[in-house]
């Protein structure tokens, strides 16, 4: 395939206009010893029909969540996406545009971001939201970065190890900056050890962090932690799951300073882990410190309501090495998908989806216990729990052989997630296979 519209004779004409003879003349500024001599060693070019079969063959070599029911969660959830979402995302005015630097020709994108920001604020109960970050984990790392930059002496990040293990690894990598010191506090019985976390808090503490529900699906009670960290003038940061917020207490209601999370459940396909979006929302007084793009409302010369990228003095293209973050491109199209998703399911629909997930998880908890298995933690859970199995990898293999995509493998348990896409029959099947395994 070629996606070049100019046929060679036109290219020749253009060269002639410039007084050049060949395309090679355009590269006389590159020394010969730097030039590729033999050509690149890549597979031969393909036409569109060959490419279509090639991609289709690759797709057929995977087992997808369309083929088998999927009980994997652990930070990415197999949720139903209303058909209208993708139809609209395919409007190429959206997906072939870039960052809306020129407001007069980008009002549609700017307004969609403004609406996204508003919806994220409504869900999280926070005052301000940015236009999106790369994903949940990097959004949390950016939140910690902000907390550490805010008070000069504060560099201690107190975090429970019941937070997603990948988030913890990301924090560790970001802390290569030398500006944050991550204190990892072991959980107890699958929940954060709030007393141990509180005991770590001091006047060097930049932030204390929990995830809700946590990595194991357990609900955390952040009340004492919020009070303690605020008493020491540190920040309370929560990583939250957006769909559950239809029913669960919002970060705003918990008293969080910053709320972040993985936005994938809001209308992004699983897509093997990306592209997703990280959402990032904060208290109003942090508005001039938060990372990333922000769209604001203003007026044009005629006084007409309009939207524009604003508070850009925070950002890399203005501030350069003094910017709080280096983020430039974000996950705009995924953020658009999220606002479309929320519009199509609506306030009541989101509640119904959250409640169904909870209902199915409770049902599954009962079913696996009746099948002779034991939940790893006796704690309140929302839509995900860990069930003990002696050999998680073998249990997953057995599930797969029975046409089920099993759970996330913990050391001695499978972490299982329940979305509105799962059915009672699928859960009965899951429990039967897992229970049978115990009998062997």
């Amino acid at each position, binding site marked *: 395939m070629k996606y070049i*519209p100019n046929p060679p004779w036109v290219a020749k004409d253009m060269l002639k206009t410039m007084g050049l003879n060949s395309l090679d003349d355009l590269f006389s500024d590159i020394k010969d010893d730097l030039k590729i001599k033999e050509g690149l060693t890549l597979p031969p*070019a393909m036409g569109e029909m060959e490419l279509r079969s090639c991609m289709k063959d690759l797709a057929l070599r995977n087992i997808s969540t369309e083929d088998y029911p999927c009980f994997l969660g652990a930070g990415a959830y197999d949720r139903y996406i209303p058909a*209208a979402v*993708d139809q609209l995302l395919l409007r190429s005015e959206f997906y072939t545009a870039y960052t809306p630097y020129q407001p007069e020709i980008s009002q549609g994108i700017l307004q969609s971001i403004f609406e996204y920001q508003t919806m994220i604020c409504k869900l999280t109960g926070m005052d301000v939201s940015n236009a999106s970050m790369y994903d949940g984990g990097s959004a949390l790392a950016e939140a910690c970065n902000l907390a550490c930059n805010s008070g000069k002496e504060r560099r201690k990040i107190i975090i429970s190890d019941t937070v997603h293990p*990948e988030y913890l690894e990301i924090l560790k990598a970001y802390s290569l900056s030398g500006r944050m010191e991550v204190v990892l506090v072991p959980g107890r019985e699958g929940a954060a050890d709030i007393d141990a976390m509180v005991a770590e808090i001091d006047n060097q503490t930049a932030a204390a962090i929990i995830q809700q529900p946590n990595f194991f699906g357990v609900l955390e009670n952040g009340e004492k932690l919020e009070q303690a960290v605020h008493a020491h003038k540190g920040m309370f940061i929560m990583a939250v799951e957006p769909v559950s917020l239809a029913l669960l207490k919002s970060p705003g209601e918990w008293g969080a300073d910053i709320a972040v999370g993985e936005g994938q459940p809001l209308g992004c396909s699983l897509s093997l882990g*990306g592209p997703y979006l990280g959402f990032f929302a904060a208290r109003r007084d942090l508005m001039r410190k938060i990372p990333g793009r922000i769209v604001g409302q203003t007026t*044009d010369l005629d006084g007409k309501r309009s939207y524009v990228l604003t508070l850009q003095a925070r950002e890399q293209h203005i501030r350069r090495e003094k910017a709080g973050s280096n983020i430039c491109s974000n996950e705009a199209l995924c953020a658009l998908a999220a606002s479309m998703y929320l*519009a199509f399911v609506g306030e009541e629909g989101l509640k119904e989806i959250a409640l169904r997930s909870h209902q199915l998880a409770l049902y599954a908890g009962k079913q696996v216990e009746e099948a002779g298995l034991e939940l790893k933690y006796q704690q309140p859970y929302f839509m995900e729990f860990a069930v003990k199995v002696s050999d998680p990898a073998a249990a997953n293999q057995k599930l797969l052989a029975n046409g089920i995509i099993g759970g996330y493998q913990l050391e001695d348990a499978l972490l299982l997630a329940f979305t509105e896409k799962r059915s009672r029959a699928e859960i009965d099947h899951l429990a039967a296979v897992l229970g049978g395994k115990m009998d062997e």
Partner: protein
Amino acid sequence: MSKLIFEKGVKGSNSFRLPSAGLPQPDINHTLPPIFLRHKDTDLPQLSEVEAVRHFTELSKLAYGVDNGFYPLGSCTMKYSPKINEWAARLPGLAALHPYQVPETIQGALQIYYEMQEFLAEITGMDGFTLQPAAGAHGEMVGVMIIKAYHLYQGDRERTKMMVPDSAHGTNPATANMIGFDVIEVKSNQRGLVDLDDLKSKMNKEVAGLMLTNPNTLGLFEEEIQDIAAVVHEAGGLLYYDGANLNGVIGVARPGDMGFDVIHVNLHKTFSTPHGGGGPGAGPVGVKEHLLPFLPKPLVVKEGELYNFDYDRPLSIGKARNFYGNFGVILKAYAYIKALGGEGLKDACQNAVLNANYMRHQLRDDYNIPLDRLCKHEFIINSKKQADPHGISTMDIAKRLIDYGYHPPTVYFPLIISEAMMIEPTETESKERLDDFIAAMKIIAKEAKEAPELLLDAPHNAVIRRVDEVKAARKPVVKWEAP
């Protein structure tokens, strides 16, 4: 202006429903302790499906993408995004894969990952790649983490500084700062290239490396790149390549052969994946052999006939994000490389450079071109010829272009050229399109002299006139609130 979605809709008009679960409905007030429950309603929109569809369709009509027309946004490589790649990304066998599925169930997807790591290594002359970073700036961050981890592993704790040319994109210094380096700026010379003497004078044992874009942000190839590499390497530093401008050399020359140790490429620029109104992108990072151990984990490896994840990487910087990368973007870039092959990539590069030089040649009578010589995929003009006597600025020219149906080029970057307008046509524009744009630019140059208010008040045909940015920043309104 369009009503906001919150100003539309009627309570009860949304009809999204789930099928029956065949189970008794739980009362959340009984199944969970009250401390965990929300008190305040989310107050999300309540629209019927048709009204929501119309809302977003209306918004799309107030936007402009590459499919609408010419979008010569410099440094962003707004090339055409092939439709077949969108089709492929939506195949359930690629779109509906959970990242924690066991490798034997995702062999096709892992093959894409593995081959993509190999393709990018070949295209850029590097020894290994991670596909994890979500964008260019994220790639820079991973790259600079690798540089830091490498020096620390060598026991070299003195290297606290990172060099960045004064022409660099803002993400370069911002990234260096985020990873805890002090930034030293290297000057550009009269020719718009790195000033080798300035570089030499600033290079020492405290410098961890130099971040460079090549072709640079002026669209010019750094002709002394091998000497630059030697200066950095002799002092023990590493050379970082910001691959935002790879489209200017792809298939013709490779950063790996120029002496770069760490690079990132932007799949959403050089490799045609759509820009999505500001993302998602992808910024894979490649390294030379001595840096392979520091790449993030996991990498995708091939063991016999099976593809697998390799997490056993003790010196790895760890993870810069969840899971493995923006797979949905990566697979489109993979399809693009498969479609073009090696010769096709070179063709794309040559035509991108041809288009840029052709435009530069055609615009030079009407506009000032500060560095008017052979460029790569983009070039810079400014409004010097238009400034007097009516005070026309580059922004005015940009806004007037909107009236002629174009997305304006990048303006006011790079910072070292005053009133810069950076034009990048890409290879997917025809001569016809370029000629139309050039004609519009010539008319605008004439208007600047004869009817300056046409520029000063532009745009005239857009849905809004110029906006009050000061007001937006002074009294920020960043979400809708019920009146």
